[in-house]
């Protein structure tokens, strides 16, 4: 649904072609090294929308082809699955320029600067531009070194491929020749079926290394019409969230944070869009797996959320209950307590069923209907930690 980054490889490929330039680079997926010219010198880098790659040691410069497979292994062992190889060129960090396109409510804006590169943030004063509709492209062309035709081609590809951000930073003009050194593109992933230049496979998320549980939830989310998310914050956390609703889940996480228990928060995540009982089971299973692995001494789980519009409380709770029953011995042994707060269609039946189940399993913390406010339910959850 939201804006997503696409790979550096795909971004450079698209933009160089559109500008009439050549681009050489090879993608590395799952450690499989493509054919690269023997005897060449290369750059190897992680291509997963990770920031500060130099600082994190995720870029190797000046790498002979003979050392390639060793270094690919180092990165894949760290859990990175998408890498990029490019020929290594030395260039001086002078004359680096910046140009960007951004989609805003009022229209697409174009900004550019003669002082680009990594220092662009500190050179904000040098940035010029505005809404494309208000700009004189001929003037922009003279000031950026792009031709008017190239600028038009950029704007065209930006729109036709549903991009929301395009940043060429830096580029240089060497001997009158345009050279693109780095490109970042964010696209609108909702437009996947409407574009020709990128696909789902080109999308990159900043999360470097995912846990098995996070991967399982991502897969579930891709396969279901309902939506699911799971992010591990602290694998040894004490507070686990099994929540529904994009807004309510943030409110609940906020409450826990504001009460000073942020460090104990193990995960953030939510399901919404009326998932089936089976899907709820798969999701719950992943959260419970995380929970059982945590080394925290006391563990509590908050189940539920706000007053749902559609989500059938009875059905979704049925899925949750069946997973809890599967793990009930272990949950009881670890002394885990469950707290439930929820409203919505068939809430009475759903809350009744989960109350009975939690009591039977001996893992009852508290069950609340919407007459108990979200903060009050969170308070009782936090008390359960003591």
């Amino acid at each position: 649904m939201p804006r997503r980054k696409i790979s550096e490889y795909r971004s450079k490929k698209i933009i160089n072609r559109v500008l009439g330039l050549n681009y050489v680079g090879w993608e590395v997926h799952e450690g499989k090294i493509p054919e690269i010219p023997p005897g060449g010198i290369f750059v190897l880098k992680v291509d997963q929308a990770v920031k500060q790659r130099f600082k994190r040691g995720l870029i190797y410069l000046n790498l002979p082809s003979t050392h390639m497979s060793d270094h690919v292994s180092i990165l894949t062992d760290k859990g990175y699955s998408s890498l990029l190889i490019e020929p290594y060129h030395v260039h001086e960090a002078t004359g680096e320029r910046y140009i960007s396109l951004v989609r805003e409510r009022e229209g697409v804006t174009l900004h550019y600067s003669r002082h680009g590169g990594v220092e662009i943030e500190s050179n904000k004063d040098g940035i010029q531009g505005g809404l494309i509709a208000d700009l004189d492209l001929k003037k922009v062309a003279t000031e950026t070194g792009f031709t008017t035709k190239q600028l038009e081609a950029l704007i065209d590809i930006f729109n036709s491929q549903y991009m929301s951000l395009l940043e060429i930073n830096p580029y240089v003009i060497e001997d009158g020749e345009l050279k693109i050194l780095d490109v970042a593109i964010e696209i609108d992933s909702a437009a996947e079926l409407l574009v020709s230049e990128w696909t789902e496979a080109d999308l990159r998320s900043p999360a470097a290394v995912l846990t098995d549980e996070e991967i399982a939830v991502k897969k579930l989310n891709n396969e279901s019409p309902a939506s699911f998310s799971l992010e591990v914050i602290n694998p040894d956390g004490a507070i686990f969230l099994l929540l529904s609703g994009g807004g309510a889940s943030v409110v609940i996480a906020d409450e826990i944070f504001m009460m000073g228990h942020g460090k104990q928060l193990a995960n953030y995540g939510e399901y919404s869009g009326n998932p089936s009982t089976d899907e709820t089971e798969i999701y719950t299973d992943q959260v419970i797996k995380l929970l059982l692995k945590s080394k925290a001494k006391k563990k509590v789980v908050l189940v539920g959320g706000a007053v749902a519009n559609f989500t059938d409380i009875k059905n979704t709770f049925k899925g949750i209950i069946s997973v809890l029953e599967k793990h009930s011995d272990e949950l009881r042994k670890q002394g885990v307590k469950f707290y439930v707060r929820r409203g919505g269609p068939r809430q009475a039946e759903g809350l009744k069923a989960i109350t009975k189940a939690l009591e039977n399993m001996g893992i009852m913390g508290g069950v609340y209907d919407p007459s108990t406010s979200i903060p009050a339910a969170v308070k009782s959850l936090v008390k359960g930690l003591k």
Partner: protein
Amino acid sequence: MTTSIEVIRKLQPQILVHGLHQGIIQSILDYDHLLGREVPSIVGIIARGRKKERFFWGGTEVEIPLYSSLSVVPVAVKKVVNSLVNVQSARNVKDSVIESIDSLPDLKIVDIFAEGTPERHALDLIEYGKDKNVLVVGPSSVGVLVPGVLKLGAIGGTMYDQLLDARIKNGGDVAIITTSGGMVNELIRVVTGQGRKVSFAIAMGGDRFPVLDPEEAILLAENDPETKEIVFFGELGGTDEYRIAELIKAKKVKKRIIVYIAGVVAELFDTPPQFGHAKALAERHDESATAKKEMLASVGVAVADRFDDIAKSLEQKELEAVELIDDQVKVRHKAYFMSHLSGEEDGKIQLLGDELLNTVQNNSLASLTLSVLLGKQVKSKKTIEFTDLVLKLLVDHSPNVSGAVNTMVAARAGKDLVSSLAAGLLTIGPRFGGAINDAAEAWLNGVENNLSASELISDYTQKTGIVPGIGHKKYRLDNPDPRVGALAKFAEKNGKYFNFAREVESITTTKKANLILNVDGAIAAVMLDLLTTQLKYTPEQLRELITIGFFNSLFVISRTIGFTGHYLDQRRNDEGLFRLDDSDLRYFK
């Protein structure tokens, strides 16, 4: 975008739902019922499949018409629609909303439900709607609620008891504006739980570019005379709240705003997390929940740091009890069948909209028969007289015909009345007695597709070799069927179907003298014309009558009398079991 909340509050809602979403539609109808409305506010649903769909109406049921596309919605319906819920899938949203705005002249408000609408499509809608007088909310919106007037979407709940629990029957003075659909019900309950009432509630949707943006939504509340206070739920991501602050600084917004911004928890993450809503991602500091809260507090907004602070910021009033759900609503269930013909009301049998005895006394047998067959009381004298003639003409056509023979054979085998009659009736089919329907289809196809008579003839002769309604064994051009003559007297002066049938006959008879318009063809053509001119049937309705076999039903009913007569005749004759003589069956070895 200039439709104000006050304009909507004065509407008599006439809602079109684009897409069949049972839960949303039912909840809108439940809200109508809760408000004590006599008729549903939903005037139609755009969805493929059936012609209508049944929904609960309080403890009973109501039918809502379905239209396969916006273009086939009758003009009379299009004219009155003032509200629209779009539950189309994300990729159809843009085109369908634009089409709706273009073709619904009185449209005031649209709510777009779909999640995952491309940003550019939302931006196109914003651009398109600029000079239109329509309030467009969404995408990813669960609805707009103006208590006592309009529930456009799932907002407020999708179950009857949820609507009661939310205390949204009457309006009040607190506006609720939220990016989150899931939180809108929670906030409604926070407000009404304080004994306050909601002036209106809008779920703008958590997309990057909501068509109605937070700034505009706040202005709607500011300009709404009923609203005194505004509860605003926002999230990290985006910088809309800065524009709200500008409005406050410029004194364009003076009403009290209570703001909650979700997402302070983002500080826990190494890389900015993407929360559930598309916009809920803060990459820069000014997009963070904390920054936005500080900034809003600095311009005098009542910032709720904790969720409970929203309730605490509202002046409490006396809390009224939640209404209990009606027992009839509680136990309601969808009936297995529906009937437009007859049924029981207060223990009395009703037929065709009146008490049985009244209906019977006001109808001749022909009139009653035709009315029951068409499912509504027919008043056209001419059509009834024609039906009378048809029913009489078709009673019997000598015992030599297949159906009568089978009845007689069964009767002589000692079978009872119903079995023998069934043997005769079961003979009716494509070669015996079933041609009136086929003939009606031929005439309708010819006229509605603007075919010439010769085009229709070549169509049929290529396909089946014969034209239904044409040809007779015995009667010829020079020896016309007297029954056809009698039927033709009822032909409407400019009856297009009968004229067409005659044109067909004028060509077929040049080929062979016995290829004349027969009784089946004549009944079909005259009946089509009478239904059109006297009973105002449209070609689509005629097509439906053909599909369901109405034209053949005339034959079945009439000939039932004949078959029954032959059965009784045979029983009186009491001749014993019938057997073919050996000479009547040739054995081929």
